């Protein structure tokens, strides 16, 4: 293909978009509406996933050491724990540290326990983090079998429920986004098809004048791509501005709580690129599949 033909196809594509004003507008609107929904749900889904991971990462196993064990063996015990399957890290916490932590976490009421400092009822403990939060229960069971361990605590019952909730949230989110993307593809490609069906006669005529399929297809290809990309612009602006606003509010008002949203960058640039891609690909796909039908003349 010669350079001037490429130029001709570009000019032709944009001219056609202008002359089919309303149809172009309809296509762009369809892309805009669906991509807006997709991007909002994607942002929500990614944040749910992010928050769920934060909560899950807080899950830890506390293995309390028998009082009779001597502290010079602790290093060896720590090694033993670290060598267990699926264990990510092990931290030693003496009973004094344990009590301090307890007092601090209880705030004012904790003061009452200060008197216990001389007669500490707690035990020395190892705090164990697993590689995958979901492995917690299994690892805890293994740890419990070791003879220097007196008792294992990991929020039995609560942890299982937490994982059920986070897993459900993720799955629902994925299904929703996938469903939306498919609806988007269907809607957008159908709108673009409509704009091309009205031009069926034109394609027929072009073929009769001796245009090759490729020659006819190119402007439609470019047009579909441009329509899809243009439709992605508004959703990107809305999600960028909106997310920044929500992020600021959440950080100001809820900053002290454990919830933390995904940072604006890289989330928004990534989402923008994804929206441009989905828009462009669906636009091209919609226009090429419909042109193909009419090329068999």
């Amino acid at each position, binding site marked *: *293909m*010669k350079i*001037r*033909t490429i130029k*001709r196809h570009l000019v032709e594509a944009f001219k*056609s978009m202008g*002359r*089919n004003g309303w149809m172009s507008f309809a296509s762009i609107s369809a892309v805009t509406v669906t991509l807006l929904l997709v991007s909002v749900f994607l942002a929500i889904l990614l944040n749910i996933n992010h928050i769920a991971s934060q909560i899950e990462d807080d899950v830890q196993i506390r293995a309390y050491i028998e009082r009779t064990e001597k502290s010079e063996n602790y290093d060896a015990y720590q090694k033993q724990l670290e060598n267990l399957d699926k264990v990510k890290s092990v931290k030693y916490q003496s009973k004094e540290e344990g009590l301090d932590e307890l007092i601090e976490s209880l705030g004012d009421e904790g003061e009452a326990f200060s008197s216990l400092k001389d007669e500490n009822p707690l035990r020395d403990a190892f705090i164990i983090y697993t590689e995958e939060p979901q492995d917690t229960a299994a690892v805890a069971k293994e740890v419990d079998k070791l003879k220097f361990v007196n008792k294992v605590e990991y929020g039995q019952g609560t942890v299982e429920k937490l994982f059920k909730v986070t897993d459900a949230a993720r799955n629902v989110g994925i299904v929703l986004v996938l469903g939306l993307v498919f609806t988007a593809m269907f809607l957008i490609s159908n709108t673009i098809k409509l704009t091309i069906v009205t031009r069926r*006669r*034109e394609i*027929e*005529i*072009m*073929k*009769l*004048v*001796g*245009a*090759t*399929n490729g*020659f006819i297809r190119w402007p439609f290809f470019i047009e579909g791509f441009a329509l899809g990309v243009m439709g992605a612009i508004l959703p990107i602006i809305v999600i960028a501005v909106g997310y920044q606003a929500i992020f600021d509010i959440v950080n100001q008002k809820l900053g002290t709580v454990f919830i933390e949203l995904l940072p604006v960058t890289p989330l928004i640039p990534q989402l923008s690129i994804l929206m441009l891609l989905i828009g462009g690909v669906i636009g091209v796909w919609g226009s090429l599949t419909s042109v193909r039908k009419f090329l068999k*003349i």
Partner: protein
Amino acid sequence: MIEMIDVWKTYPNGVMALNGIDVYIEKGEFVYVVGPSGAGKSTFIKCMYREEKPTQGSIIINGTNLAKVKERQIPKVRRKMGVIFQDFKLLPRLTVYENVAFALEVIEETPKVIRERVMEVLDLVKLKNKARMFPDELSGGEQQRVSIARSIVNRPPVVIADEPTGNLDPETAWEIMDIFKEINDRGTTVVMATHNKEIVNTITKRVIAIEGGRIVRDEAKGDYGYED
């Protein structure tokens, strides 16, 4: 120039449109194709520009056998002939100028050549002053002149017309015929299917009559021969 040897065409629904056509058309000839509706006239014309593929036989135009041409090669074949239709078949969203230029853009001509040639043929069909108008702003006769301009702009050796005056009033039809005569005088072969008795009988040329998918008459200086 154009040669059909034992051409048969049966449509998938069983209609036998052409039943053994043999014809030879010399370079620079002017040929009318006449016959009642449904006699196979349209199929005959469509086979010439390869909208339909014959079931059997060969059609040789400019040295190419259309019956053997591959799907991908059809555009190349069509560039060597001009085709004109009863319903003009202009691109509605392109101006007069762009419609004519399209036939040259397809073969990737340089912009300079395109400009020159388009203005040249628009001058020939006397539409130079309407180059920027859209088809729906023109009369039927003017639209047909645009379509003729488009068909000859890449200087094909053959022009095939399927009832070019069918949608036009008699006066306009004569204007169109003047252009066809002019094209033919420049050495282009013209094959024209028509129902216009007056034209065939006045501008006497070779007449091929088709009935029941066969050539029933082929006269060098013929007349229309039907009463309708």
